[in-house]
């Protein structure tokens, strides 16, 4: 009993690092994100993009707005204690979007994250994640990111 308790505590203090075997792990989706006209306009202005499609009566979102919603699902990954990943030690190495249709004002977008691939090279973890964005079950965008994570010195 005591040994089991100790092991549990040790796991929490010194989590096992992420391994290639974590590929395939999927998390429950983040709460649906409602796309609003104001947020579309704010985002387009921040990109310095004045395309009328973002400012008309029935606006679509700039394509890379998908990243804002995908990022809502990242919390599940960094909140998974078993992986020992820290956002502050993570660099975004590459990003791919496959767009099935534009995001529109009023869409309630669900974002679900799956770990697709893990490569470990010494102190570096290269983690490819897939966030599937959907509206009422219809796929709207697949966002894939490769994250480069540096382990804490103690884990190396």
């Amino acid at each position, binding site marked *: 009993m005591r040994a089991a308790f100790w092991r549990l505590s040790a796991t929490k203090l010194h989590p096992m690092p992420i391994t290639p075997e974590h590929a395939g792990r999927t998390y429950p989706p983040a709460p649906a994100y409602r796309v609003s006209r104001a*947020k579309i306009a*704010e*985002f387009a*202005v*921040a*990109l*310095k*993009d004045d*395309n009328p*499609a*973002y400012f008309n009566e029935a606006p*679509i979102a*700039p*394509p*890379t707005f998908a*990243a*804002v919603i995908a*990022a809502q699902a990242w919390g599940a990954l960094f909140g998974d204690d078993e992986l020992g990943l820290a*956002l*502050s030690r993570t*660099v*975004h*190495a*590459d*990003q*791919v*979007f*496959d*767009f099935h*249709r*534009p995001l529109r004002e009023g869409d309630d977008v669900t974002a679900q994250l799956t770990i697709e691939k893990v490569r470990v090279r010494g102190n570096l973890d290269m983690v490819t994640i897939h966030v599937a964005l959907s509206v009422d079950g219809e796929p709207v965008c697949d966002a894939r990111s490769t994250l480069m994570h540096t382990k804490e010195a103690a884990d190396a």
Partner: protein
Amino acid sequence: MPDIQPGDILGELRVPVTRFDVVRYSGASTDFNEIHFSDRRAKAIGLPGVLAHGMWTMGAGLKLVTDWAGDPGRVTRYRVRFTRPVVVPDTDEGTEVVYTGTVTDVVDGLATVNLTATCENAEVLGAARAEVRID
């Protein structure tokens, strides 16, 4: 979109970026990583200073493609590698990212556009490519 050929040039897009713009993107994207507003935090992890968001650099450059295509809804795929950070000095001028684009392929109503992005003469995006429906 009539008569798109491999080799077509999309021209050049120059986007100035100041600390104001970086803060504005933090709010719009809700990415409040401190390296995007604090030199102290950026330097603590070995960076030269406040950086623009990689996703800003990716997103701002797509304007070159969507202005050319007219309708941003025509973009079916967009990928980049983040090769170097865009360092944004705390000056009135800030810095500038320069984008160029070239059509490399036209197949089955889909055009592939290769993009380059440079800041202070260094490439900041690698293998940047957008696919656009042109039928």
